C-alpha cells in the first residue's frame, strides 16, 4: 500500500521536475512534495500506522524514494544553472575591436633610449657609468688633456667661458682625468653627459648636446683592445653585420688617435642618401690615452696604458631613429616624443 503510494509520488515528482523550466517551479515542486503538507510528508506521517515489524522496511523505501527525487531535483537545478550561465555569456558578448582603454603612459626621450642602450652594452663589459661637472675648470677641460694655453682648440669661438679659469665643458673628456685622479687602475668607465659649444642652433648643431666618454686603464691595454672593444660595441648597437673602419686622426689627449666609421646600416655600405653616398658613417673618435695625460693624472705610463673614446649621443639617436633635425630633440613636442 505504502509502496504503491511512494511509487506514484515518485513517478509524478520526476515527471514534474522534468517539466520544470525555472528555479521557481522547481521550488514549487519541492514544497508540493516535501512541504509540511506535501504528499511525501503525508506518507512519512503515515509511518505511525505501519506495523512496527514493517517499519524498517517501509522506512528504507521512504528514504530511497526521497533520495531519488532529490537527486533528480539537483540534476535539474544544475542543468538550469548551466543554461542560465550559457545565456548570460551569450548576452555579454562584446565588440572586441572597439578602442582599448589605455593608461596614459609617458614616453622616454630618444636621447635617453639611445644612452640606455649604450650604457647597457658597456655595463655588460664591466664598465662603470660615472659623471662629472658640467661647469668645469679650464684645467680639466683642456690643460690636463694636453691642450695647453693658447691652443687653437681653446678658442673662444667654440668654448663658453664663465671666466678665465671656469668654463662650460666642451667635451666629456675631463671626466677621464677626474676618474684617473680619483681611482686606481683597473678603470673601466663611461661618462655620459651634457657638453656645450658655441654653435648656433640649426638642423645639425646645438649649443648644448651630449657625449659619452669611455676609458679603460690597466696594465697591458693595447690599441688592438681599443679596436676590439669598440667593434663589439658597434655590433651590439647597430647589429652583428655592421663593419667598422678605423682612420688615423688627431686628438691632443690620445696617441695614436683614430676616428671610427661604421658601414651604413641603411644601405649596408653600398652608398645611399643616408650616408651621402659614402657607404660609411663617422661615429666616434678614440685613441690610446696620451702618456702625458696619464702622467698628469697621477698614473705611471710606464706601468699602465689605456684607451679612450668619445661618442656623440645625439649623433647616435639621430642615426638610429632616423631623425633629420636636431632641433626636434630640444623642442619636446609631444607628437615627436610619442614616437619613441
Amino acid at each position, binding site marked *: 500500500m505504502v509502496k504503491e503510494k511512494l511509487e506514484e509520488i515518485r513517478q509524478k515528482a520526476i515527471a514534474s521536475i522534468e517539466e520544470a523550466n525555472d528555479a521557481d517551479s522547481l521550488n514549487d515542486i519541492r514544497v508540493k512534495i516535501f512541504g509540511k503538507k506535501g504528499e511525501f510528508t503525508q506518507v512519512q506521517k503515515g509511518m505511525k500506522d505501519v506495523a512496527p515489524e514493517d517499519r524498517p522496511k517501509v522506512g528504507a523505501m521512504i528514504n530511497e524514494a526521497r533520495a531519488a527525487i532529490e537527486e533528480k531535483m539537483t540534476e535539474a537545478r544544475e542543468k538550469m544553472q548551466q543554461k542560465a550561465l550559457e545565456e548570460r555569456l551569450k548576452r555579454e558578448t562584446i565588440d572586441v575591436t572597439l578602442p582599448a582603454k589605455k*593608461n596614459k*603612459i*609617458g614616453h*622616454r*626621450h630618444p*636621447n*635617453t633610449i639611445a644612452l640606455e642602450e649604450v650604457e647597457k652594452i658597456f*655595463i655588460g663589459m*664591466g664598465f*662603470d*657609468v*660615472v*659623471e662629472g*661637472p*658640467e*661647469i668645469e*675648470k679650464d684645467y680639466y677641460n683642456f690643460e690636463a688633456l694636453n691642450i695647453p694655453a*693658447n691652443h*687653437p*682648440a681653446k678658442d673662444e669661438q667654440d668654448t*663658453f*667661458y*664663465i*671666466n678665465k679659469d*671656469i668654463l*662650460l665643458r666642451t667635451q666629456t673628456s675631463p671626466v677621464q682625468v677626474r676618474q684617473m685622479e680619483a681611482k686606481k687602475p*683597473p678603470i*673601466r668607465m663611461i661618462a655620459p653627459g*651634457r657638453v656645450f659649444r*658655441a654653435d648656433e642652433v640649426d638642423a645639425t648643431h646645438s*649649443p648644448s648636446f651630449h657625449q659619452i666618454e669611455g676609458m*679603460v686603464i*690597466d696594465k*697591458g*691595454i*693595447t*690599441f*688592438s*683592445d681599443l*679596436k*676590439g*672593444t669598440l*667593434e663589439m660595441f658597434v655590433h651590439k648597437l647597430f647589429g652583428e653585420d655592421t663593419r667598422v*673602419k678605423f*682612420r*688615423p*686622426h*688627431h686628438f691632443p689627449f690620445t*696617441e*695614436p688617435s*683614430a676616428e671610427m666609421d661604421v658601414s651604413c646600416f641603411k644601405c649596408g655600405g653600398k652608398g645611399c642618401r643616408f650616408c651621402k653616398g659614402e657607404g660609411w658613417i663617422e661615429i666616434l673618435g678614440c685613441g*690610446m690615452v*696620451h*702618456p*702625458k695625460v696619464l702622467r698628469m693624472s697621477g698614473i705611471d705610463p710606464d706601468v699602465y696604458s689605456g684607451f679612450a673614446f668619445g661618442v656623440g649621443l645625439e649623433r647616435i639617436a639621430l642615426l638610429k631613429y632616423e631623425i633629420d633635425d636636431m632641433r626636434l630633440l*630640444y623642442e619636446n*613636442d*609631444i*607628437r615627436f*616624443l610619442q614616437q619613441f
Partner: protein
Amino acid sequence: MRTSLKWLQSMVPGLTNDPQKFCDAMTLSGSKVEFYTVLNKDLDKIVIGQVKKIEKHPDADHLVICQVDVGDKTIQIVTGAQNVFEGAKVPVVLDGGKVAGGHDGSKTPGGITIKKGKLRGVESDGMMCSIEELGSSREVFPDAPVNGLYIMDDDAPVGADAVAYLGLDDVVIEYEITSNRVDCFSIIGLAREAAATFGLPFNPPEVKEVGDDDDVNKYISVDVENHDLCKRYTARVVKNIHLAPSPKWMQERLRSQGIRPINNIVDITNYVMEEYGQPMHAYDLDTIAGHKIVVKNATDGEKFVTLDGKEHELDKDMLMICDGEKPVGLAGIMGGENSMITDDVKTMLFESACFDGTNIRLSAKRLGTRTEASGIFEKGLDPNNAIDAMNRACDLVEELGAGEVVGGVIDIYPEKVNPWRVKFEPDHINAYLGTDIPKEQQLKYLQKIELGYDEKTEELIIPTFRQDLLSFADISEEVARFYGYANVATTLPKTSATAGGKSYKMEIEDIARDVAEYCGFSQAYCYSFESKKVFDKLLLPADAPERAAIEIANPLGEDFSIMRTLSLNGILTSLSTNFNRRNENVSLYELGNIYIAKSLPLTELPDERMQFTLGSYGDGEDFYSMKGVVEEFLDRVGMVDKVTYDPSNKRPYLHPGRCADVVYDGEVIGYLGELHPTVAKNYDIKDRVYVAVIDMPYIVKFANFEKKYTGIANFPASTRDLSLVMPKKTLAGDVEKIFYAEGGDYLESVKLFDVYEGAQVADGYKSISYRLTFRANDRSLSDTDVNTAMDAILNRLESMDVTLRS
C-alpha cells in the same frame, strides 16, 4: 688643404691615376680626404681649333658661320659668340662630345652632349666653348672674357686635346688635415705622405742656389727686436724685375689649387706657399725707408693701412714689420699699402719668416683680419722651412726670368731648431699596439717619412718639420698608420674583471623616470642656459636669490646668457610650444641640473643640483593629480611616510592658494602647485598648468630602500567613521597629524573619504570625513580600546575648533 693630383705625381713618380684608390689609401694612412673633383669628368672630344673664316649667317643677325680647323679637317660651326675672329684658337667640342655646363657657369651633372645639327637652317658640326662650358671659371682664368669664347694662346697646337692643354685633365683633392700636421699644409708634405702610403719614391723639387756677385747687405739690413715672436727672418733682394705672366705650367698648377694667376712675382710667392706651406711676402724695396727692416711690436693705438686699403688700429702685442721710419707690414698677416708691389717695381725684397703662431692667431683675431698667410702661420711653422722656401722662390725668379737675384741671404735665426731624437722601441710599440711588426718593417715605415735612425744609440732622428713627433706614443702612431689600422687585430682587454654599473644617484634618477612615465609624463630635454628675462617671466622679485645666476662671458646671445638657477623655465617653454601647436593634454618631465654659485663672481665650481621637474596641462589635471605623481615617486624611494606639505611658502610663480613645499624631516625637498595665472600668461599657455620640482640631491640623501616584512594581520580590524567640521583654513594634514599623535599604537590607517563645503555646514567651515582603522597584532580589539583612542583624538581636535558633525 687641397692638392692637384698631377702636382703630387710630379714629386711621386708612379703615383696612381685612380682618384678613388688614391683618396681611400690616403684617408687610411691619416690624410683624410673630404672629397675630390675630376676636372674633366664631364668633358669629352674637345680639341683646339682655329677659326679660318667667318661669314654672316643668311637668316640670323646674331649668328655667324665659322670654318674651323680642328687638325685633321675643317668643320663648320655656327656661333653667336661676339668675340670670335679669324685666326682665333678656341676649344672646340666635336660632334658627340661633351661639355660640363652652360656658359653662365651652371654645371650639368653628367655633362651636355653636343651633336651635329642645323642652326637656323645652317649646318653646325660642333661647338666652340667658353671657359665655363669647360667646367672652370674666370676666377682662375682671368683672361677669359665675361661672355664669350675662351681664346687660347697662339702656341696652342691645332687639333690637340684642349682639355689637357689647359691643364684641366687633373683631379683636385680636398683634405681635412689635423692641426698637428703643419707639414701637410703643403704639396711637399702631402707628396711625402703619398709616397710613404704607396711605397713609391719621393722626389721633392731640386733647388738651385742662385744669386749674383752683388751683396744683399748693400741693399737692406734687418733688425729683429722681438725674437720670441719672430723665430727666424730671412730676406733676399731681387733687382731688375721684369713683371710678366708666369709660364703656362705654373699657371696650371696655381689654377688647380684654385689660385688666380696674376704675374710672375705674385705667382711665385703663391706657388711656393702651396708647395712649401710657407707664406712669403714681397716688398717694393724702393719704398723701404733707410733700407732697413725692423721687426718689433706696434704701439697701442697706432694706425696702419694694409694692402687691401683697410685701416687698422694696432696694439702693443701685435708684431709689425717696419722700415727705418714706419710700419710696412702686419707680420704674418698682411703687408702694407705703402710698400706693396706695383707694376712699376724695380727692386724687390722677399721675406720668408717664422712668426709665433699663437701671437699671429690672436692678432689676426683682434684685427678681424684672418688671411691665408695668418691661417698658416698660426699653426706654428718649422723655422727651417723658411729658408728652403726662400731659396725655392729665388730659384723660380731666375727660372722665370722675373728678375736678378742679388747674392747673399739675410738670415736672423738666433735659436736654431735642430732635429731631435726619440728612442726607437720596436717591442714596446708592438706591445702598445697589440701587433707583431718586425723591427725592420717598422724602421722602413719611419724612414719613408724621412725619420733618421742612429743604430748605435737606437734613436730615431726626427726632422724638424715633424713637430708632432716627440715621444714613444707619437712614433707608435706613425708605425700603426703605415702598417694600417685595419691590419691591427681586434682583441678584448685581458684585465682584471670589473663589475660595472650605475651610481646610486643614477639609479634614483632611473626610478624618477620610470615613475614619471608610468604616470603619463614624457621626457623633455631642456637647455641649461637661458635668458635673464626668465626671472621676470616667473615674477621673481628683484632680490630673489634665484637671480644670482652664473653668467656666461661670451654667450650666443641674451637668450643663452645665464646658467639656470631654477628648472621651471625649460618645462614651461616646452609646454608652451606644445600648447601653441594645439597639442592637447600634455605632461612632460625633465631631469636636468641647475647651477647654484657658492659665491659670485665664481671662484670655485658651483653646486650642480639635479632637478626632477614635472609639468602638465589638460583634462583631469589638478593639484592633487600632480601631488599623486610626487607621492608615487616618494613612495618608490621609501620617503613618503615622513613627507608633509607646507602651503605657507608662497613662491611667486605659483598660485598662492594652490602651492606647497614638499617637506621631508624638516627639509624642503621640492615644491608643487598650480602655475600662477600671470606666469601661465607670460608663457602664452591659456590653461591651468601644474608643476612639481623635486631637488634630487635630497632624494639621494634620504632615499631608503630597506624593506622588512612585518606580518599580515590575523585579527579583525575595528573601524570608526567620523565626519569633522572645521574652519576652512584648517589643513587636513594637521588633522591627520592629530590622528597619528593621539590614535595610539592600534591606529593602523587613516583614509579620507569625503570633503564637503556648502549649505550643510556653517559659512567659513568645511566638513571632512575619515575612516580610521584600528587593529592589534595579538588580539581582537575591544570597543573600550578603540573608544579610548577616539576620545583622545576628539579631545585634541576640539582644541583646534574641529568638532564632530552633528
